């Protein structure tokens, strides 16, 4: 019975697929035979907002699922796990330079979107502005290390708050497309 169901579903899928292709032949719009084919359904594999969030805060077993959880559902699914990971990385964590305790900090990170200002400086952190974007030259890893390990005034765990790589190996361009030519 179960096997029959699977067979029926498979046949139904095949029929719908070929039927879809047939109807596509009649399409004279921009997706039709005269231009590139843009038809089909595309299903999510990877996503990213802030740098290194999946890498640092998500356990190996959850990495695929973090990539396929929509951001509006990520806090409910991952905040508790992020908090456990933060306290595993830094058992002495109390608050950080933003004044965030562990639940607040991980609550802010679990929804993995990058906030980008539309009315001023756009930077991950430039000494004054915090999380208003991500520019190419921003030392995002040292910022994250400082917030994870540095404590309330940034002075704790001094060997862990900066990876001492402060810039890219090629200068960026001042105009579009901004990124440096390939090596």
């Amino acid at each position, binding site marked *: 019975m179960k096997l029959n169901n699977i067979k029926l579903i498979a046949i139904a899928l095949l029929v719908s697929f070929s039927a879809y292709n047939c109807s596509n032949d009649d399409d004279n719009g921009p*997706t039709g035979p005269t231009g590139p084919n843009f038809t089909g359904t595309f299903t*999510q*594999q*990877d996503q990213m907002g802030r740098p290194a969030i999946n890498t640092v805060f998500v356990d190996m077993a959850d990495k695929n699922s973090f990539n396929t959880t929509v951001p509006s559902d990520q806090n409910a699914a991952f905040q508790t796990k992020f908090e456990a990971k933060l306290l595993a990385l830094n058992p002495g964590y109390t608050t950080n330079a933003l004044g965030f305790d562990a639940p607040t900090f991980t609550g802010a990170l679990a929804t993995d979107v990058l906030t980008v200002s539309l009315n001023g400086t756009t930077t991950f952190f430039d000494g004054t502005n915090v999380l208003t974007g*991500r520019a190419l030259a921003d030392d995002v890893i040292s910022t994250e290390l400082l917030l994870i390990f540095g404590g309330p005034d940034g002075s704790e765990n001094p*060997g862990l708050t900066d990876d001492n*790589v402060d810039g890219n190996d090629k200068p960026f361009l001042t105009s579009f*497309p901004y990124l440096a030519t390939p090596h």
Partner: protein
Amino acid sequence: MKKSKILIGAAVLTIAGFFAIAADHIDAPAVAGGTSDITDIYGFQGQNTDNIVFVANLQGLLSPASTAGASFDENVLLEFNIDNDGDAIEDLVIQAIPRDGKMYFFGPTAPSQSGLNSTILADTAMRNEVDITSYGANAIVETNNGMSFFAGPRDDPFFMDFARYGEIIAGNETMFNDPGSDTFAGTNVLSVVVEVPKAMVGTGDSVNIWVESKRKQ
């Protein structure tokens, strides 16, 4: 002696490469090393301060020798998601999909549905296209209606002593080196860069963005 040092260096690089999952490079088993692996995204004000720039990089850790052979996958849709009302649900998308040497862009436009599945909004959205720049060629830029587009290989702008970070996490080291060593130096990525007028993405003080890669079913 020298040769063994080089060999050790090569082994370290190989190991670092394999485990280099920093930023978002090779972040999860389902995408690691594949054509849908997002390595980094960026969002910043343009040279024209009325504009905002979005960057998505794919397929990290390309050596110079392997860059010419790397290409965008025609089955992978790249989607810039823009939330302009603070609920972390996309209000607008900019879709990018390669076809026969060109990168096609649709949007910014409201998606037909939010979430994990997308169709390309080819019949309704504003369409732009740019020739994909080949390795070693000058950047080809298409500008239209105040929007600019680029797709092709670039230097990986990400920098970090990821190898040392891995050693610290593994418990083999207790602190970073000073100076550190950039694990991503000398490597390339495939980049998609879009610059649009700010007015096209939102009217508030800020937007939330994220980038998704979606594979054709």
